[in-house]
């Protein structure tokens, strides 16, 4: 059944890409909405108005330069609610005593930024790279350094060059600890990092490096570790293996332990620039932004652009969003649980707690329970980004309960929720049919099919022509249920 997509360069997974392709009729062809669904955590009333005012090109260019976007409100929210995120690694090392507080701060703040940052494409790319170079948060060794990894590896380079990001990750204690390179030495090499550097971070498992290449990769990176007294990255010449190494086209005599760090840096940059890495990142970007079946032509084009621009990511994104393959892929992706949560928050116009973090933490635990907590995937390969992996009856029930919990303001109740009555058309239509149409346009940016509208009307026990008045259930105590039910519809699942 369907099109099986073998994950060339994406590991050994095979999934059914048609599962998502078939969702296309649920989305309108509107390209403005299409761009917002893909490049942000969900269209809001305000973001759609902004995009329409600016035009797609200008909107995209602005999002590609996140520093040009005034995001003070979100920055101040994070700075005031999570002051510890500003801590240096040294301060965290001195203060936390292996406590996980800072990792929770990072997780909660990541949820908040996704929902409320104006730099939406940037936050989306932060998520993309956090998965590509995954260091699970929270996890045992990240207690003092994972927030710094987020800041100095992922966020610093998310719109920069991948070669810089990959190198920064190779010289960060969070990665060295997470993949055990901190314990790797010439006497006792640990292949975890050397292998994943090839398989996950760069060229991919089918690039042809073989077990010999994997072993050379491990030996090249021996010595990259941490200073156990300070927790900082440190290169240990005494731990570095010397002797000839060969990985794909990278060869070195490797005669000097003193020069081992330079060798490792050159190797990491070589991997970042490798054509297989270019194709792999192009494919993953297509998987995130275009389709569960990445179009081969677009993948090739993006890979070429990546190499032409020395691994710079902005030209690749510009080309992706401007491509005809992207334009044709309306409705070809399905929201993951976290994307559903953020889209729901944004379409309802919800805001963070007036003070404190109770509501934000509520969102964190909610999405943790759905198995899609940002940064938290427990394996090195990052969350799966295709619909087949997220098919789940329990997950679907979670979404339905989440829509109701947010729309009815049950929990987290300390988040701000504008009155749902603001969504009602004024003056009220005379019958129920136009009311459901209006709410659908407000929440889904389209009307539902007649049969689906009838489902909502049936829920209310009315017909399309049943008269509507100011005290009808649909606009009073059942309004939150109607809003939730509309968000439960498959239209809201389409990204």
């Amino acid at each position, binding site marked *: *059944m369907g099109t099986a997509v073998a994950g060339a360069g994406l*590991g*050994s*997974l095979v*999934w*059914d890409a*048609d*599962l998502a*392709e*078939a*969702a296309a009729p*649920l989305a309108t062809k509107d390209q403005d909405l299409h761009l917002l669904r893909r490049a942000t955590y969900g269209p809001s009333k305000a973001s759609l108005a902004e995009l329409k005012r600016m035009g797609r090109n200008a909107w995209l260019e602005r999002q590609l330069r996140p520093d040009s976007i005034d995001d003070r409100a979100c920055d101040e929210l994070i700075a005031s609610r999570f002051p510890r995120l500003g801590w240096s690694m040294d301060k965290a090392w001195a203060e936390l005593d292996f406590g996980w507080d800072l990792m929770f701060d990072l997780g909660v703040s990541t949820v908040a930024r996704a929902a409320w940052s104006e730099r939406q494409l940037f936050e989306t790319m932060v998520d993309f790279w956090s998965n590509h170079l995954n260091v*699970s948060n929270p*996890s*045992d060794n990240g207690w003092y350094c994972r927030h710094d990894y987020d800041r100095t590896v992922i966020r610093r380079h998310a719109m920069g060059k991948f070669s810089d990001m990959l190198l920064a990750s190779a010289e960060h204690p969070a990665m060295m600890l997470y993949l055990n390179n901190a314990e790797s030495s010439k006497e006792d090499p640990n292949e975890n990092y050397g292998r994943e550097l090839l398989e996950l971070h760069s060229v991919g*498992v089918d690039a042809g490096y073989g077990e010999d290449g994997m072993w050379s990769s491990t030996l090249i990176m021996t010595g990259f570790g941490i200073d156990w007294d300070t927790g900082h990255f440190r290169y240990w010449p005494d731990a570095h293996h010397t002797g000839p190494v060969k990985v794909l086209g990278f060869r070195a005599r490797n005669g000097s332990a003193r020069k081992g760090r330079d060798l490792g840096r050159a190797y990491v940059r070589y991997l970042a620039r490798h054509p297989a890495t270019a194709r792999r990142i192009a494919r993953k970007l297509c998987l995130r932004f275009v389709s569960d079946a990445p179009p081969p032509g677009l993948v090739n084009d993006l890979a070429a652009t990546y190499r032409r621009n020395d691994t710079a990511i902005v030209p690749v994104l510009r080309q992706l969003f401007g491509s005809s393959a992207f334009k044709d892929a309306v409705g070809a992706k*399905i929201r993951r649980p976290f994307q559903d949560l953020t889209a729901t928050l944004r379409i309802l116009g919800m805001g963070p707690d007036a003070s404190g973090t109770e509501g934000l933490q509520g969102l964190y635990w909610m999405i943790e*329970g*759905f*198995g899609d907590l940002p940064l938290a995937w*427990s*394996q090195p*390969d990052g969350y799966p980004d295709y*619909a*087949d*992996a*997220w*098919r*789940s*009856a*329990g*997950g*679907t*029930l*979670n979404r*339905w*309960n989440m829509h*109701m*919990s947010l729309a*009815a*303001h*049950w*929990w987290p*109740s300390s988040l701000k929720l504008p009155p749902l009555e603001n969504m009602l058309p004024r003056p009220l239509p005379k019958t129920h049919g136009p009311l459901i149409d209006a709410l659908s346009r407000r929440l889904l940016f389209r009307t539902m*099919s007649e*049969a*689906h509208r009838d*489902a*909502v009307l*049936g*829920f209310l*026990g*009315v017909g399309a022509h049943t008269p509507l008045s100011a005290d009808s*259930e649909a606009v009073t*105590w059942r309004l939150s249920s109607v809003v*939730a*039910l509309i968000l*439960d519809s*498959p239209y809201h*699942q389409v990204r």
Partner: protein
Amino acid sequence: MTTIDLTPTPDQLPATIEPRKPCGCPDYERGMSRRSFLKRAGLSGLVAGIASQTMFTRLAFASAPYSGDVLIVLSLRGGFDGLNAIVPAADPDYATWRPNVGIPSGILLQLDGMFGMHPAMAPLKGLYDAGQLAVVQAVGMAEPNRSHFQAMEEMERAAPGTSLRTGWLDRVLGLREEGTAFQGVQMGSSMAASAFRGSSSELAMWSVDSFGLDAAWDADELARWSGALRELHQGAPPAIGQPARSALAALTTTAQLQQVGYAPENGAAYPDSDLGRAMRDVARLIKSDVGLQVAAVDYGDWDMHAGMGGVGGGWLHDHLTELSGALAAFATDLGPRLSDVTLVTLTEFGRRVEENGSGGTDHGHGQAVLLLGGGVRGAQVHGQGPGLSPGALVDGDLAATTEYRTILAEILEKRCGAGSVGSIFPGIGSQRLGVVNAR
């Protein structure tokens, strides 16, 4: 792939959905959770509009293609100290390594010439003697790993030396015809274990009684919501429609189970704990014939680096008491149905042979596995004992003489109708200990 539609037919739903004021239920507007409502309302009449005996019949029919044992994986997370549970009392080195936290041989429940059970496991002794419980000693992964996180991941991936990212239970289900929404269940958690990771569908639930639509406070409301959700997903693409239909089927079933309620049979008394409730709900699903094939349950907090406690009380004692009580109640409750069930315990690693200075034990390697079920070759401790002499230890750990996957493979082959297990456990050898009888 065969899809079996479990949605109730229209005749199972109320003919008309009457609008209903929330007059009798003011809490609705204040945001009362469904769970608290159910507690107060006592579940009465919850699914009067939907429930019908035909549903059970349909579920039973739908699950017919799978006829093997229900496999239950109980994960003892944190590192279960097998050496202090199934104690190698006759090994002269045992008392030397563990002068303080070791269990004195005099109080053990004798299993054979070598081993005795911790006295807190007394509820299991009868099952052992009756041949329904067995132990496998010195079990482990091919590559020892003392990191909780990595060891759990690796154990549940169960495919060392490959780049497979799926979990072994997912691969087990993936080889079978797709069953009901209840084919694979993680009980006692809203998140499925990584053993289920992959594209086969499973259902994670805190409990049967809490699995529901929060907005539906009674049977009429559930019918109202279910009907609307079903219609809303008509024509939806499979990625959206299939799990929605499964969720609705599961909701219908859980609502029915909630209405019927559950009383353990044969005098079974489950511990009043998360584990007790989870095992009770697994028994409930088995006896309800909802199509359960694989269930996973977690029982954590075994990481006893310090303050393990004494033989008459304390951390280890209390944990073993709860574990044994829950398993014994489960077996009692199932009665004859135990013959269609195999339960296996796993832990990410055993613990260091030598005790530490804090009244506990550190991360180690070789572990003890418990097997419970009608097909288990019980009343014996399987596996080869590597011994506890200094020369026999590996980095201070009990050596593993049996790869854990060979136990699982044997259960799948003999009890669960698996043909070749090579795609579930890549690279697995042909060694089998003979821990279960063929069905």
